[in-house]
C-alpha cells in the first residue's frame, strides 16, 4: 500500500482539459460537488462528461463553461424540473449532447471494469437512441454466438478520471461507502484514474477492523482528499441530507440569468459551501 492522500487542488489537477470524466453518486446523493467546484475554479475546458443520471454536477460545469460533450441517460433536477444550463446549451448548440440509456451506460462502465472491450445488453432494439449511439460508435447490434438472439454490444467506457465522494477512507485509499453505492465501485474499477473525496479520514487500523466495510480497495485509488461537506448541497448518507433550498436557489439564479452571481458566491467565493 502506498499513501495517496493529497489536496483538492492537486487532485483536480489529475483532470486534464478534454478528459472523459464521471462522478460518483446519483442526482442529489453523494455527488463530489466540492471537487466539481474546484474544477470550475481551475477553469477546466472541453470536459467530456458521462453518467447515468447526473444533475447539478453536470449542470454547474456546463453553466461555468467547462464542458464540451455530455452523454447521459437523463440530466434533470428531479421534481424541480429541467437542468437549466444543460437545456440552454443543448438547444443553442454550444454543447454536444448524446443521450444514452441508463443500461448501456452502466454496461459500458461494467465492460471497462471487467477489462472487456464490450458487453452485450438486452432491450434497446427499436429505440431511436440506437441511431444516435451508432453515430458515436458506442453500440452495435450483434447475434449471440450460442442462441442467435439479437443483442446490443455496448463499447467499454473507460473514463480518464472517476471522482467519487465517500464517507470514509484511510490515507492509502481504502474507501468505505455507506448506504447506496450506485455505480461508484464499477466506475472506480472502470476508470484510468480514481479520485476519492471523503468526509472523514480514518486510520488503517480502523479499516482493518471491518474489511467487509471497505467498498473500494487501495490499489485502484490514485488520490484521497479529505473534503468534509464535499457533497454539499447534495447529501452524504450518515453525514447530511440534501439541501433542497440551496438547489432551488441554484435554479432560481439560473432562471433569472444570475448564474454568474451564483458562481461568484458559491464557487469562487466559497460562501457557505
Amino acid at each position, binding site marked *: 500500500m502506498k499513501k495517496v492522500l493529497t489536496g483538492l487542488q492537486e487532485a483536480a489537477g489529475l483532470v486534464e482539459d478534454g478528459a472523459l470524466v464521471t462522478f460518483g453518486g*446519483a*442526482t442529489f*446523493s*453523494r455527488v463530489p460537488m466540492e471537487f466539481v467546484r474546484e474544477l470550475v475554479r481551475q477553469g477546466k475546458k472541453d470536459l467530456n462528461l458521462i453518467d447515468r443520471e447526473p444533475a447539478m454536477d453536470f449542470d454547474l460545469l456546463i453553466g461555468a463553461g467547462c464542458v464540451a460533450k455530455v452523454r447521459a441517460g437523463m440530466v434533470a433536477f428531479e421534481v*424541480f424540473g429541467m437542468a437549466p444550463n444543460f437545456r440552454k446549451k443543448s438547444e443553442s448548440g454550444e454543447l454536444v449532447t448524446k443521450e444514452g440509456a441508463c*443500461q448501456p451506460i*452502466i454496461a459500458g462502465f461494467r465492460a471497462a471494469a471487467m477489462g472487456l472491450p464490450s458487453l452485450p445488453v438486452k432491450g434497446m432494439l427499436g429505440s431511436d437512441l440506437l441511431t444516435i449511439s451508432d453515430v458515436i460508435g458506442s453500440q452495435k447490434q450483434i447475434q449471440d454466438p450460442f442462441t442467435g438472439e439479437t443483442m446490443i454490444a455496448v463499447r467499454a467506457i473507460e473514463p480518464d478520471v472517476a471522482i467519487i465522494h465517500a464517507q470514509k477512507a484511510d490515507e492509502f485509499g481504502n474507501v468505505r461507502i455507506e448506504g447506496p453505492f450506485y*455505480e461508484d465501485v*464499477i466506475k472506480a474499477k472502470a476508470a484510468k484514474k480514481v479520485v476519492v473525496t471523503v468526509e472523514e479520514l480514518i486510520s488503517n487500523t480502523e479499516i482493518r477492523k471491518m474489511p467487509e466495510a471497505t467498498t473500494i480497495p487501495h490499489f485502484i485509488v490514485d488520490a484521497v482528499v479529505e473534503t468534509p461537506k464535499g457533497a454539499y448541497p447534495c447529501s452524504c448518507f450518515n453525514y447530511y441530507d440534501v439541501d*433542497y433550498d440551496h438547489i432551488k436557489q441554484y435554479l432560481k439564479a439560473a432562471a433569472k440569468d444570475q448564474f454568474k452571481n451564483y458562481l461568484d458566491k458559491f464557487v469562487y467565493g466559497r460562501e457557505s459551501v
Partner: protein
Amino acid sequence: MNDKIDTPDMMIYAMASEIENFDTVLHGVSSPLPILAMSVARKTHAPDMAYISGSEGVDPELDRIYPSSFDARLNRNAVAYFGLHEAFDLAQRGELKIMFLGAAQVDRYGNTNLSVIGDVNRPKVQLPGGAASAFLMPITPKVVIWVTRQSSRVFVEEVDFVTGQGYNHRTDEHKKNEIVIISNLGVMNFKNPDRLMQIQYYHPGHSVDEIKENTGFDILVAPDVSESPVPGPDIIKLINQIDPEGVRRSEFR
C-alpha cells in the same frame, strides 16, 4: 361518485392497482407517484411484493417521500441494498415484473419520447432524457407510463423521437409485454389484437369524450370501458401520511 379525489391520488391509486402480490417492482428517478403507488400497493393488496427503490433499498419501511427519488432516507430500515445494475440484470432475466416510466410524448403504439422535440442534432426542446426507457420498455413484462397532463400535444400521432419502444417497434417476442398509460384523465392500455391504444378507464369527473378530445390521434375505446375504481378514504389517508408536504403535486404545477 365519491367526494372529489385529487388527480394525483387518483393516478397513484390506478398505478398501485397495476401491481399484483409477489410482483418485483422497481421505481426510477423523479418518481414520487410510483413511490407512492408502490407504497399503497404494499400496504393494501400486495403485501408480499418485492419493492426495489431507485435509491437501492429493498422493501424499506418508507415513512415519507422527498423531492429526490434517490434520497437515501427513502431506504429507511430496508432489508437490503440492491443496485440499479443488479435490478437491470434482473430485468434481463425477465424477473423484474413492473417498471414505472414517464413520457413527454406518447403515441397510439405506445412509443414514448423523453429525448427531444424537433431535430435531435439541434433540438427545438431538449428534454431530460429517457433514462431506462429504451432498455426496459420492450423487455419488462409490464411497463406503466404516467402522464400528468394529457393533451393532444402529449398524446401525439407520431412521437418526434422514439425513446421507449411501442408495439410497432418491438420484436414479436416483446409484443406480449404490457404497456399501461395512466394519465390525469384516465387509464389506457393496448389489450386488443392490434396493440393500439384504447381507453380502459376514465377517472371520475372525466369522460371518454374528454380523453378523445385530449388525444392527438384516433384512440380506441375498450368494450368494457368504465369509470376508474376510486380509492377509499384509508388510501387517501395513507398517501397523505407518506407525502404530507405534497411532493406528488409538483409534477402537476
